[in-house]
């Protein structure tokens, strides 16, 4: 069997270093290289000629949160499928039935949410 060692991730680490280094490097470089003109208009959040109105920090509807939370739940569910799929052959029928039970219980939840209108957007 293929042995995995932490060293195998060295390329990924190097990629991270290069990526972060590039981003930081460009930011620092543009900061020093580019010309600077500071004025009220320039420092506006949106520089498009229209006055900014109000504040971006307004409390918004709970509906977004509900969707996000349901997303997390189903996300975790999908995570569980990953190790199962890798072992699908060796687990055989047993694992299949296991997953079927798991999925069907969550499917009940899904239909419950549908019925309650959790996905409806008014």
């Amino acid at each position: 069997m293929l042995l995995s060692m932490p060293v195998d991730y060295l390329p990924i680490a190097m990629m991270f270093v290069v990526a972060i280094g590039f981003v930081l490097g460009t930011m620092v470089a543009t900061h020093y290289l580019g010309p600077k003109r500071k004025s009220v208009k320039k420092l506006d959040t949106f520089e498009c000629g229209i006055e900014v109105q109000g504040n971006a920090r307004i409390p918004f509807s709970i509906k977004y949160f509900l969707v996000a939370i349901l997303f997390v739940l189903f996300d975790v569910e999908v995570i569980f499928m990953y190790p199962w799929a890798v072992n699908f052959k060796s687990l055989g029928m047993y694992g299949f039935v296991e997953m079927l039970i798991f999925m069907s219980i969550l499917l009940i939840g899904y239909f419950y949410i549908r019925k309650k209108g959790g996905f409806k957007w008014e």
Partner: protein
Amino acid sequence: MLAEIFSFKKILPVLVFFGLATALYFNFNDWSTYHSYFYNMTTIDNFSIVFSSLLIGAVIMWLLMAGSYYRDENKITDHLAIICFALVGGILMTSYTNLMMLFVGIETISISMYVLAASDKVSLRSNEAGLKYFLMGAFATGLLLFGIALIYGCTASFDLGVIAGYVSAGNLPQMFYVGLILILSGMFFKAGVIPFHWWTPDVYQGAPTAITAFMATVVKAAAFASFFRLFQMSFAGVAGWWIEILIIVSAVTMIFGNLMAVSQTSLKRLFAYSSIAHAGYMLMAIIACNDMGARSLILYAYAYSAASIGAFAFLIILINQLQTDHQDALKGLAYSNPLLAIFLAVILISLAGIPPTAGFFAKYYLFTTLISQGYVGLVIIAVLSSLIGVYFYLRPIIFMFQHSNVETKLKISQSSLAFFALVTLIIVILGFMPQLIIEII
């Protein structure tokens, strides 16, 4: 045992009732057998059967009681579903033999409770209760999980038997003790005993009354069952070490709970503090840490659950009709509703631990168990603090017999009167024949 999960949507309470009854039947079917299932994840023995019957029975009683609470058909389906999930969590907590199962069980019951505590969306109090419970509960779960991780780091196993073997082999590293302390703190929180009790009064008062009843009975019993099981099965080898902590904690809990309850005028808050005090008594059973302790814990849990479910059922009626749970509302109850007053008196007497009720024999049995093990000082503290308890439990009874200018007359339907009669009957039967429960295992 898991059949009740699937009765999920658009269920009538009746269906759940029968589901629970079948679950109870299957539960007893396993009587006196010793099985471990699923790679030793859960083990069914008599201890777990008695406790899961208690949980199922309490949920059945709760259903009978909650019928009057939930007029709104829309809401009851959701609540019942969550109650059933919580019950599954509770049953896992009574029968686990693997720390993983313990964790999943605790999480299931806790998450259900967070939701239910906040379920009265228009009430600010209920929201506060839900949020408080959630934040503190999540923190306690974190501690518990950290403790489990440290223990796993030492023993390389989640299995209670393997851990017990590791403990008896001796030469434990420091890490193990810290893991033990962290697990202990997590369990203290779930059981609502002293250093981790601050959530109890607020949550009990803020949550809808029916939910409070559920928390005070099912959740508490499940927490103590899992507590006892964990410490008896795994950590009995280092008992000398954690028993000292438990003795101090239980003594302080009893004294504090009873003293705080004295100054309460709101009945709901009074029961919250009294539940802290009772948690202190139940901790004593864990200190005993043997079969006698298991029996007294079971008897105590039965007596306490029966009495408190009755008390909360009364509170539901009171709050529904008078919109208050101040103790003055009780004035003159003995004259306007004599039968109800008698039932309530029996319930309170049982909670106070006066013979011939179940509460007395539960306490008596618990105390003799501890004395036989030599914890005389603790028992003296326990007796003294129950004397304080007698004062504030008898106070509502005195209120009931006082005349007042405002005539409070509660409208009680025949069925809820029958429910109170049933509760009282259970209390009295357990009071006269405690051996029914004691000799069962």
